[in-house]
């Protein structure tokens, strides 16, 4: 199918599509690596504090030593992959809320893109390393740019709650882009939905076009098929109304459920909007699929490739629909909200990587910060070499200096005279 090959060429298919298993293992790897680093960083921070204390007091006080030992023995409680997932989901929802703060509100597609950026970012990074509170506005600001919805940074900053500095918002921008692997193209199901609805309306008005592989269809057949759907209605107005309702419901699902779940990673946009349509109006969606892939299953169709595609597609769409249906907004669920608050408020606070906290500062002096974070072993040969080279370069330039050489000669001469 030509359309499928078009999609296969997209970066979303090439880099950001996963199976359920690979998605899970990727998140698990990210979590373990991040946890290790957080533990190491916290230990280093403690060591640094203790050494500072000991140097300040001169002799280490026995009490403080015991205390530090106690903290050392207490294992640092890191987030689990599931908890991380909840945190990311929460901030994804926050992006939708944040979009409402602007006048006019940010377009759905900008928010959706931002959410996907955030989710893609946290596939390879952990909330323990970079706090989503910092990343979230940056992802949204990046999305306004990539989706061609211009907002100046000042305008954008005014909408962000807590009034952070503009620098703080764009501080992690390069980091985010890097983690996105510089692929900014997100294929959304929204426009596909419009196309599908457009065609359904054409069918309802008797202007349907047969699919390229099913040329036997006539517009009148299609129209009759549409009007004979289960809650059958004779009037064109009622059918129009039904399509509009399905359209609206599907759109709502796409705006929320499709964004906050892993649907984008596991399914293609056209599969997502069709499964959302299945949820909104199952007979309508099935009818539409039948017009594309041939009628309902009959035994004589065994060898037909369209038949094979249809069975496989229905299975996939149903799986996707289950994922979409399982979604419930966090805000509506008090219990989950409470646990989430505990996770973010306490646990995430304690296991935040202290070395990555100040992104804006880190950006300003990246090399120094990196060297400090890496410890003494990290001030690597490359740095030493660079310094050595610099020194050499300066030294080498000296004899060529127009007046410098003379001065030295002068001094030696004076010395000789003195001697």
């Amino acid at each position, binding site marked *: 199918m030509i359309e499928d090959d078009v999609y296969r060429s997209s970066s979303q298919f090439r880099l950001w599509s996963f199976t359920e298993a690979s998605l899970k293992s990727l998140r698990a790897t990210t979590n373990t690596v991040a946890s290790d680093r957080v533990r190491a960083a916290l230990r280093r921070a403690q060591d640094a504090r203790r050494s500072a204390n000991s140097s300040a007091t001169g002799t280490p006080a026995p009490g403080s030593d015991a205390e530090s030992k106690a903290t050392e023995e207490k294992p640092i409680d890191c987030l689990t992959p599931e908890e991380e997932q909840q945190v990311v989901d929460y901030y994804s929802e926050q992006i939708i809320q944040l979009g409402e703060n602007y006048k006019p509100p940010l377009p759905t597609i900008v928010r959706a893109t931002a959410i996907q950026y955030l989710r893609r970012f946290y596939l390879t990074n952990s909330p323990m390393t970079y706090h989503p509170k910092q990343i979230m506005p940056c992802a949204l600001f990046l999305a306004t740019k990539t989706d061609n919805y211009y907002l100046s940074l000042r305008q954008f900053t005014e909408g962000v709650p807590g009034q952070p500095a503009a620098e703080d918002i764009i501080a992690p921008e390069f980091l985010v882009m890097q983690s996105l692997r510089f692929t900014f193209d997100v294929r959304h199901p929204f426009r596909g939905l419009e196309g599908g609805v457009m065609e359904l309306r054409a069918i309802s008005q008797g202007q349907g*076009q047969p699919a390229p592989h099913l040329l036997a269809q006539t517009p009148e057949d299609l129209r009759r098929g549409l009007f004979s759907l289960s809650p059958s209605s004779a009037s064109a107005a009622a059918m129009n109304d039904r399509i509009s309702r399905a359209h609206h419901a599907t759109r709502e699902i796409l705006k929320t459920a499709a964004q906050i779940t892993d649907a984008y990673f596991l399914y293609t946009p056209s599969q997502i909007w069709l499964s959302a349509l299945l949820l909104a109006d199952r007979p309508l969606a099935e009818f539409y699929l039948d017009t594309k892939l041939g009628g309902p299953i009959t035994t004589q169709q065994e060898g037909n490739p369209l038949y094979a595609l249809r069975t496989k597609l229905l299975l996939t769409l149903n799986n996707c629909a289950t994922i979409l249906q399982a979604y419930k907004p966090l805000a509506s669920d008090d219990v989950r909200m409470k646990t989430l608050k505990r996770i973010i408020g306490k646990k995430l606070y304690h296991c935040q990587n202290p070395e990555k906290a100040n992104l804006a500062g880190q950006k300003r002096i990246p090399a120094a910060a990196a060297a400090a974070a890496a410890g003494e072993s990290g001030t690597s040969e490359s740095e030493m070499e660079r310094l050595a080279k610099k020194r050499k370069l300066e030294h080498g330039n000296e004899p060529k200096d127009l007046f410098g050489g003379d001065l030295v000669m002068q001094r030696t001469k004076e010395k000789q005279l003195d001697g």
Partner: protein
Amino acid sequence: MPPARDAMAHRGDDDEVCPVCKSSRYLNPDMRFLINPECYHKMCESCVDRIFSSGPANCPVAGCHKTLRKNRFRKQTFEDINVEREVDIRRRVMQVLNRREEEFDSKRAYDDFLEQREEIIANLVHGTDVAKTESDLQRYASENMRSIRANQALEAQEASSFREQQTQEQELARLRREAARQEYENERKELLAGREDVLSRLAAGRPGDAAAIAREGQKVLLKKSSARRSEEDRIRQKQAALRNSDARKAGQGPLTTADRADDGGAPSLIKGLKKIKTPEPEKPYDPFGGLVPNQRDYYTLRDYYPNSYLDPIRQDSRMQAGGYDLQEYYSRTLMEAFAGLGCFLDEEVSKRDITNTSNVSRPVATEGAALAAVSSTGAPEESS
């Protein structure tokens, strides 16, 4: 053949007597003998005029019934009539079998061709298997008309360029001779003038200066002659260079563009010709690589879709003035509606991952790309 042999036998006696009218050169000193390549019977000019002026007629020699035409009569080149005949045959065969060496696969094939040609000529000369040889030759000539023509043209061209070159060379040699003579004259004149100059100065000057003046005159002469010699050298070098360039130009023979219409059908007379490789005609450029531009697998695009939201745009000239085309919107939305409908990620991604991991040398150019390898290396953080 027999008449020719007879003629040869009695040549000494018949030399001065026309075998037809029996008039002898003794009576008519201006008598010229002509022959016709049809039968090679000799007769005098007046006989030819008398017999053949009113159109073709039979040969007047007894026993020879060949029909001759007046325009074919010509002067005999060689004394021996057999040689004359062979030369004629050879010319005719050579005109037909005029393949060139560069048309053959190998030297061996060309040699075979030459041998074959000689054989044909010998056959025709000695009258063995004449009918078959002639028919072969005819067939070959009609089949290879174009290549024969082309080769003839080439030969003519070569001959003319050769002639041209020769005349040019002769002209150059003449010029050189002329220049040499001129130079010799000049030299002599100068020598004389120098001597006269010295003499006149000797006559005018004091006797004490005689030796000095004589030496000076000698020096002037020497200087002049050496200057001339260097000048000569220069000219000679120039000419040599010119000659070389000419030779080089002449050496670049024109390439053969003969058609070698060898077909697999009837066995050709000549074997070992190079196969002609006709380049395949270039296909028209296909920018879509075989794809039909507007072909789709899931839908057929219409010109118009009813839509209450888009219909006003159709009517609004302000919206369309900038080149906005609703057709673009239709094709894009429908494309996105179905792009990837048949991509089953759970299958395709796992397949892709397998090929990826087997392919160890993944291009890791940037740190962003390094992040991509996270599933295999397990290092999600950026550099520290």
